[in-house]
C-alpha cells in the first residue's frame, strides 16, 4: 500500500471520529470545535484529491467565517456553556439512530455495489483553468449566487436587527 493511500484512509478515519463527536458531545463549544476539525480534515481530503482551490475556499469560508458565526449564535442564544445534559432529546435517540443507520446502510450498499472497481487518478487540477471556466461558461450561475448571498446578507441584517417599535422595554 502506498503512503498516499495510508494518509487518505487515516484522514477518512479521523473525519468520521470528529463528525461523530459533533453530534454526540454534550458541550456546545466542543461541538463547534469538532466541526472545525471535520472541515479541516475535509480540506485535507480535497488537497489529497488535488483540488486545491476548493480546499482553500473551504478553509476560508467555513473555518474562517461560518464557525465564527456559529460561536456568535451559541453565545447570543445563551446556550449553557460547558457540559449540558439537556442538549439531546433522549426519547428521539433510538429513532434517530435507527433512521440514520438505515440511511447509511442503504447508501453504503448502493455506493459499494455501484462503484465497484472505479478508481481515482489524481492528476492535479489547475486553479487558472477553474477560474476561466467559472467566469466564462458558469458566469450566469456565479452572478446568481452572488445575488443570493447579497439577498441573504440584507435579509439576515433585517431579521436580526432590533426593531424598536416592536420590542417592549422589558424585553431585550
Amino acid at each position, binding site marked *: 500500500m502506498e503512503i498516499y493511500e495510508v494518509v487518505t484512509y487515516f484522514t477518512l478515519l479521523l473525519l468520521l471520529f470528529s463528525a461523530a463527536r459533533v*453530534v454526540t458531545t454534550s458541550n456546545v463549544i466542543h461541538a463547534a470545535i469538532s466541526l472545525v476539525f471535520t472541515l479541516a480534515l475535509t480540506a485535507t481530503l480535497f488537497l489529497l484529491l488535488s483540488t486545491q482551490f476548493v480546499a482553500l475556499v473551504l478553509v476560508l469560508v467555513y473555518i474562517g467565517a461560518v464557525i465564527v458565526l456559529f460561536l456568535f449564535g451559541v453565545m*447570543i*442564544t445563551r446556550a449553557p456553556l460547558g457540559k449540558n445534559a439537556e442538549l439531546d432529546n433522549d426519547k*428521539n435517540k433510538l429513532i434517530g439512530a435507527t433512521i440514520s443507520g438505515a440511511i447509511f446502510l442503504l447508501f453504503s450498499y448502493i455506493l*459499494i455495489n455501484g462503484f465497484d472497481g472505479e478508481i481515482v487518478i489524481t492528476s492535479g487540477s489547475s486553479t487558472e483553468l477553474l477560474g476561466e*471556466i467559472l467566469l466564462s461558461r458558469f458566469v450566469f450561475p456565479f452572478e446568481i449566487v452572488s445575488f443570493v448571498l447579497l439577498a*441573504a446578507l440584507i435579509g439576515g441584517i433585517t*431579521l436580526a436587527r432590533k426593531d424598536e417599535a416592536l420590542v417592549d422595554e422589558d424585553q431585550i
Partner: protein
Amino acid sequence: MIVQPVLVTAAALFSLGIYGILVRRNAVMVLLSIELILNAVNINFIIFDSMLADSLMQGQIFTIFIITIAAAEVGIGLAIVLMLFRNRQTANINEFDLMKW
C-alpha cells in the same frame, strides 16, 4: 485509489448529520448538523469530479456554489434563531410549537 472508502465516509457523514438533526434540542446544534450534511455532499461532488476527470470541472464549481449557499443559509438560519430567542427566551426547538394546535 479506489473510490468506495471515500463515498462510504461521505454517506456516514450524511447519516450522522441526519442523526444530529433528529436528536439535538438546541437550534444552533441543528444548524451544525446541517453543515455536516452539506459537507458530505461536497465530498461526493469532489470525488466524482476527480473520478470522471471532467474537463469542465463541474464538480469543483458546484462545490464552490454549495459552500456559498451554505454560508447564506447559516446567516439566515442564525438570524431566525436569534428572532425566536428574542420572542421565546430559549433556543430549544421543542418549544417552538407556534404552528401546532
